[in-house]
C-alpha cells in the first residue's frame, strides 16, 4: 500500500471489496512473496556496505525489515545519528521508503523503527526509557497477546515494567492461550527488547573474515575508474591476509550501486594464496565487465569469505622446482576456471566401482597428490570411452561368442581378432525396486580388432535366454584402444 492509499483512508487487513467500495478506481496487484523476498535480499546485500552482518526479516507482511549489526562501526559514518540520516537519505534517493532506527538491542531498534514517532535513536542504556511510551505491538507479539494486553488495560510497553514478572509469565505462558501454539511470549520479547535476554542475528550470508572496502566520493560508472582503484583494494586485502598468514580460497568483488542494488563477481582459488598480482589477474580474467554498474556504484568491497592458513613448505628438504611447479599449477587452474567456469578443469580419481563409466570420478583437481592406481590397471582398457555407449549392430556366430561383423556409425567392420568375454555383472546392491525401469543386465566385454587394425571395446548387454526378459541382448561400443 502506498502513501496515496493511506491518505485515502485505506488500511492493511481491509478486504479488497471494502477498499474498492471506498475508492472505485483503486489499482490492486496480487501479492508476490517470492519477488518480495528477492528484492529484500538484494537490499540486504546492498546494506553490507554499512555492516558485514545483515539479517533479513521477511515477515509478517508489512513489517519486513533489515537488521544491521553496527557494533563499533557507527563512527565510520559520522556517528549514530548521522548514520541513520545517511541510511535513510540513500534509500530515499534510490526510491525506497524506509525508516531506520538504532538501539542497544534488536528488539528495541525494531520497535523504534516501526513505532517510534520522533525518536529513532536510543542512546546506550536508554532503551527502557525510549520504549516506555510505545504501544505493546512494538514488542513483536502475536496479535492474540496484544488483544489480551489491551483487555487488561496495558497499552504501552511502559505499563509492563511495573508488573510482577512471575504473574506476567504465568498468564502469558507460551502456548497456553495461543490458538496455533504460537505462544504469547510477552516476557521473553520484553527481555529481548531490554537486553536481558540475548537474541542472535542470523546474517543473510556469513560475514567475510577478510574484506577491503573503498568508498567513492562520486558514483563510478565506468570500468576504467573501477580498474584503477582495484589495485589498492586488492593490496589492502592481501595485507590483511598476509598479517594472519592466511590465503584466500574465494574472492568476491561486490559493487554497491546508487540505486540500492549490488553487483558482484566471484572467483575461486585452488590453493590458499595471498598475492596481489594473482588476485588482480584472476578478477580481470573473470571479467570486470560482468559487473553491472547501472547508474554507477559508490562503494566497492573485495572480500575473502573463505580463507585458509597458508602452509609454508620447507624448501631445503624438498625439491625446489617441484614446489615452484605446484604454485604455477595452482595459478593455472585458477585462471582456467575463472574464464571457463568452475567445472571445466578436472582430474580423475578411482571411484572404486567396476562398471567402466562409473569407475572414474572426474572432480576438481587436487594438487600435490600422487596419481592413483586404477584397479584394472593390469587388464587392457581403452584410452577413450564413449558415455553413453554407442549402439552397434553386431553379428556373432554363436550367441555367447564375440561378433564377426559389426556396424558402428554406419560403417561395417569385419572382426579379425577378438578377446573375451570379460564379464561385468550389474551392481545389484545399487538397484532399487522400480518396476518402470528395466533392470540392468550383465555385460560381456570383448576386445576387438578389425581388419584395418583398429581396436574397439564392445560389449553385449544381457545373456541369451537367461536375461532376455522380453528383450534381446544389445551390442554397444564403449571405447577405442590406442
Amino acid at each position, binding site marked *: 500500500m502506498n502513501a496515496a492509499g493511506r491518505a485515502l483512508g485505506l488500511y492493511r487487513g481491509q478486504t479488497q471489496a471494502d477498499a474498492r467500495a471506498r475508492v472505485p478506481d483503486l489499482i490492486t496487484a496480487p501479492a508476490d512473496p517470492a519477488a518480495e523476498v528477492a528484492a529484500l535480499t538484494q537490499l540486504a546485500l546492498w546494506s553490507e556496505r554499512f555492516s558485514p552482518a545483515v539479517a533479513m526479516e521477511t515477515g509478517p507482511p508489512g513489517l519486513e525489515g533489515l537488521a544491521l549489526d553496527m557494533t563499533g562501526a557507527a563512527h565510520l559514518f559520522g556517528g549514530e545519528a548521522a548514520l541513520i540520516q545517511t541510511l535513510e537519505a540513500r534509500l530515499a534517493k534510490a526510491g525506497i521508503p524506509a525508516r531506520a532506527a538504532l538501539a542497544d538491542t534488536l528488539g528495541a531498534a525494531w520497535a523504534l523503527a516501526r513505532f517510534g514517532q520522533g525518536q529513532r535513536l536510543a542512546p546506550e542504556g536508554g532503551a527502557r526509557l525510549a520504549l516506555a511510551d510505545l504501544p505493546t505491538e512494538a514488542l513483536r507479539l502475536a496479535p492474540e497477546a496484544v488483544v489480551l494486553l489491551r483487555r487488561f488495560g496495558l497499552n504501552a510497553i511502559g505499563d509492563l515494567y511495573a508488573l510482577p514478572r512471575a504473574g506476567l509469565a504465568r498468564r502469558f505462558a507460551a502456548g497456553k492461550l495461543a490458538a496455533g501454539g504460537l505462544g504469547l511470549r510477552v516476557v521473553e520479547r520484553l527481555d529481548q527488547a531490554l537486553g536481558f535476554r540475548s537474541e542472535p542475528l542470523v546474517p543473510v550470508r556469513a560475514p567475510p573474515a577478510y574484506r577491503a572496502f573503498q568508498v567513492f566520493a562520486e558514483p563510478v560508472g565506468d570500468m576504467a575508474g573501477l580498474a584503477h582503484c582495484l589495485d589498492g583494494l586488492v593490496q589492502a586485502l592481501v595485507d590483511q591476509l598476509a598479517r594472519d598468514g592466511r590465503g584466500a580460497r574465494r574472492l568476491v568483488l561486490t559493487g554497491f550501486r546508487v540505486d540500492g542494488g549490488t553487483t558482484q563477481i566471484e572467483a575461486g582459488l585452488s590453493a590458499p594464496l595471498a598475492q596481489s598480482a594473482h588476485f588482480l589477474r584472476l578478477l580481470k580474467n573473470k571479467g570486470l565487465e560482468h559487473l553491472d554498474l547501472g547508474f554507477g556504484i559508490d562503494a566497492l568491497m573485495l572480500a575473502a569469505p573463505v580463507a585458509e592458513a597458508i602452509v609454508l613448505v620447507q624448501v631445503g628438504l624438498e625439491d625446489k622446482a617441484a614446489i615452484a611447479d605446484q604454485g604455477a599449477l595452482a595459478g593455472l587452474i585458477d585462471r582456467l576456471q575463472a*574464464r571457463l567456469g568452475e567445472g571445466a578443469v578436472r582430474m580423475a580419481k578411482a571411484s572404486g566401482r567396476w562398471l567402466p563409466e562409473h569407475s572414474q570420478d572426474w572432480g576438481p583437481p587436487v594438487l600435490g597428490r600422487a596419481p592413483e592406481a586404477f584397479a584394472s590397471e593390469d587388464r587392457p582398457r581403452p584410452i577413450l570411452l564413449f*558415455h553413453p555407449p554407442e549402439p552397434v549392430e553386431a553379428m556373432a556366430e554363436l550367441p555367447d561368442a564375440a561378433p564377426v561383423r559389426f556396424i558402428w556409425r554406419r560403417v561395417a567392420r569385419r572382426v579379425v581378432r577378438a578377446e573375451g568375454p570379460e564379464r561385468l555383472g550389474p551392481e545389484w546392491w545399487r538397484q532399487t525396486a522400480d518396476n518402470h525401469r528395466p533392470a540392468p543386465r550383465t555385460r560381456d566385454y570383448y576386445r576387438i580388432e578389425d581388419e584395418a587394425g583398429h581396436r574397439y571395446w564392445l560389449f553385449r548387454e544381457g545373456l541369451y535366454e537367461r536375461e532376455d526378459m522380453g528383450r534381446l541382448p544389445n551390442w554397444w561400443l564403449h571405447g*577405442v584402444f590406442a
Partner: protein
Amino acid sequence: MSETHALSALKCPLPASEPVLEEVAACHPQDLGAALGFALMRVGGDGQPDPRPCVLVAPKVWLRERGRPFAPGWSQKGGTLILVETMDEHQALWALEEALKSGAVSGAIGALAAPDFVATRRLDFAARAGRARAVVLRVGQTGGLSTARRRWQIAALASGAHALDARAPGPERLRASLIRRRDGAPGFWELEWDNERRAWLGSGARAKDHGQTHSLPVAARLANHGLATGKPRPAAA
C-alpha cells in the same frame, strides 16, 4: 619412459621430444585412439620422468563425438592428466596457450580441428616459454600452414602376436609417419606398445629381444626416396 633409449640401440631413434609444438594427426577418425596414445608419448617426460602433470584441452563437441579420456586406460599409457573442457575451439586455443606458458605442465595436448598459422605460432612460443611439450591433435585432413616443428600422421596397424592366444589382439601397433620436419628427413616408424616398459618401442626392438635380427624400423631408406608418407588405406567396407 625409455623408448628413446631402446630405439637408439637400433641406430634410428624417434626424434626426441622437445618443448616445441608438434602436430599429431590421425589418418582416419578410427585411428584417433592410436594417435592419442602416440601423442601421450610425445608430451610425457622424455628419458627422465617429469613430475608435472599433462593437460588435455578439448572442446565439448570433440569429447562428445570422439569419446572422453578413460582414466584406467589413460593411466596405462601416460601419467597424471588434467582435463580441460571448453565451450569452443577459440577457448580451447586460449586454454592451451595458457597451460603451456604457465610452466606448470610437462606437456599439453589440444584437440583442435584447424588452428591457423598465427595460432600455431603462438602455441610454439608458449611451449618454449613454459618448457612444455605441445601437441595439436587433429583428425583426417592435415593441410594448412602450421609452425609445428614436426607433423606426424598416425595409423593403427594390426596388433602384434598375443603371448597366449593367437586369436586375441596382442600389443597395440601403430605406424607413425613424420611427414614434415624442420631438422631432418621425413620417415616413418612402426611402433609397438610394450606393456612392461610402459612405452612405445620400435617393433624391431622386441624382435631383437627374442634373438632375431630384423632391421626395423624400415623408414630411413624409404624416406630418402620420398616415400615417407603413411600409405592411406581404403576405408573398411
